[in-house]
């Protein structure tokens, strides 16, 4: 009544297994690009809080620092990403941006919707 199954019931080898067991698989941390910069994430010391204000001046003054990027710098792109639902902020997003106009908690956008900046 049906053709023999070729996948169901069989152990299918991973397409990337060979790269991985030989150490040849390249991860993001293995990449070296011309002029590549390194980023240091500043994480909130609080489990749940509003970002009222970001003051990048001290960080920007450190020798060698090329840029300090906060959510207020993401106006040129969609600040959300996600494999299924684009609801994960690239950087912590505050409604009103880094300037912190009022510091109201951000609202996450729904998939397909617009960011509530």
């Amino acid at each position, binding site marked *: 009544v049906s053709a023999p199954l070729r996948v169901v019931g069989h*152990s299918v080898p991973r397409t990337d*297994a060979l790269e991985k*067991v030989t150490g040849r698989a390249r991860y993001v941390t*293995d990449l070296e690009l011309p002029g590549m910069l390194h980023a240091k994430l500043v994480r909130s010391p609080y489990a749940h809080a509003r970002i009222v204000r970001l003051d990048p001046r001290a960080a920007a003054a450190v020798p060698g620092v090329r840029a300090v990027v906060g959510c207020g710098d993401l106006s040129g792109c969609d600040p959300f990403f996600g494999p299924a639902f684009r609801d994960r902020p690239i950087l912590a997003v505050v409604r009103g941006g880094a300037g912190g106009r009022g510091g109201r908690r951000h609202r996450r956008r729904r998939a397909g919707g617009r960011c509530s900046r």
Partner: protein
Amino acid sequence: VPDTRTPSSFSVSLGVNGRRVTLDVPAHALLLDVLRDRLGLKGAKRSCDIQVCGACTVLVDGAPVSACTFLAVEADGREVLTVEGLADGDRLDPLQEAFMKHGAVQCGFCTSGMLMSAKALLAEDPAPTPERVIHYLRGNLCRCTGYRKLVDAIVACGTAHGDNA
């Protein structure tokens, strides 16, 4: 009066996957950075950076070490084996074959370290029991939690190795 201060860099000469390598390294250089950034061997991964996760495991004179907390100068005069040196050209190590066959590879970030620890284990015990494998791999974490298949692969490899011997 001789300058007795610690020199800022040392010339080290070590075997890496059978190749003799001589290079100057800062006193504080870690073996992992030398392998990854100076020698381009990216197979060993930096993950926890504090000798907890085992992703950076390489063998130094056959013994598994966390390259993230191992000074490059300590490897002077010794033989280092990384995942890149496991296969003999296109001929894979039986462990690499077993990992693929048993589905012991998921995201792959722990794979290099797992393989190197398993390599050391099989050198010590050619036919380890599952319990022995589990105990030996206690320093290698798999965040995909694919431990069962890792243990299967290593046990099968050990058994096959023993049968062939």
